């Protein structure tokens, strides 16, 4: 029999995890192999030493300390807004609802392409849609508007950016438009 294979099963043998047939084969080998028998004895003693470690007593104030920290406001379940704020970071100072509203329009990650002619008619972006066909049109339109917005923003064309955002037809993109109009430097820094 292969000694490394035998030794690889000694732990399971010790824990009585082997089938009756496997155990029988191992028993037969152990009777004849002093090396593997010695290894089994050492493993047994190792496990015995572990199991003889005493149960440590927790500090008597542990539960009290946990409850006191909870009462002081620690470890409350995160709200959706808190989780978004933590994940997205301080660059987005808008509320979680605004972020959700802007997601399709402003946060889609699109490669910069050659600038396309800006449409003079910018209709509202539907955002999420219940039907598949309308959703595709909305996403495509949203991507086009996102490209245009980024292009104008890079050129410092704040009025055009604000116009595109207002034309999106969403109250939160209108809010972002206000930022561009009143404090374009700050807004561009966090874009």
């Amino acid at each position, binding site marked *: 029999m292969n000694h490394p294979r035998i030794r*690889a099963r*000694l*732990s*399971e043998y010790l*824990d*009585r*995890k082997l089938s009756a047939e496997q155990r029988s084969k191992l028993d037969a080998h152990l009777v004849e192999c002093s090396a593997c028998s010695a290894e089994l004895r*050492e*493993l047994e*003693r*190792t*496990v015995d*030493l*572990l*199991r*003889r*470690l*005493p*149960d*440590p*007593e*927790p*500090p008597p104030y*542990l*539960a009290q*300390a*946990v*409850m006191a*920290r*909870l009462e002081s406001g*620690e*470890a*409350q*379940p*995160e709200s959706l807004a808190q989780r978004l704020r933590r994940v997205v970071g301080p660059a987005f100072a808008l509320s979680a609802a605004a972020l959700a509203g802007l997601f399709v329009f402003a946060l889609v990650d699109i490669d910069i392409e050659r600038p396309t002619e800006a449409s003079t008619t910018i209709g509202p972006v539907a955002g999420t849609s219940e039907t598949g066909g309308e959703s595709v049109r909305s996403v495509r339109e949203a991507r086009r508007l996102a490209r245009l917005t980024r292009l104008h923003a890079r050129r410092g064309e704040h009025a055009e950016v604000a116009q595109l955002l207002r034309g999106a037809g969403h109250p939160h993109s209108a809010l972002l438009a206000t930022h561009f109009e009143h404090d374009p430097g700050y807004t561009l820094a966090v874009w």
Partner: protein
Amino acid sequence: MTYEMVESRVVAPARAQAAGRGFSVISDPDAELVERWLAGDEAAFGDLVRRHQRRVFSLVLRMLGNREEAEDVAQEAFLSLHRHGRRFRRQARFSTFVYRVAANAALNRRRTLGRKRAREEALARRQDAGLDLPVTPRDPESAASGSQIQARVQAALLELPPDLCMAIVLYDIEGQSYRDIADALRIPEGTVKSRIHRARHALRDRLQALVRAEPEESKGVAS
């Protein structure tokens, strides 16, 4: 260590094994408290803390080897449990979820502390035969003679890689089954077996003087 305590540790894995092999599912003794807690009863959470603090503290202490760190991490584990309570899936026992949270807390702290510091502390304890670990032996004679052995075993545990240490602590000390450990650590049962096997061999190598001694010598107590 009394006979009863030893037997419970020997028997517990077998009981858990029976459950894992498709015997009747053990009902969750924490179910009612958990439901009350998740419905908003904070006092129920306090009861859960008191019910599980011993196992959480034991696991964390064995992983870190330092009582002060263990107290801190045990508190953090319960706070994390409270924060993420809604993630508890009732298909598993609540105690499994508790072990998962406590294991993560212990592993994170251990990574922060680093194995180097763990080795330094283990060496200091070996040299001083310090009683950093609280000992509540039933036999006063064994307290005096067994404390050095306990310190060496604990030091050897700290020298193991964290994943091996966690597996062997959960199995051989906490008495959890392969299946419960697999659920708690979110790893396959085969990986649990492998880690336990490797951990035992690694510990055996570090405790050669003890495991190769005659049984009466390694026990450190009169037989």
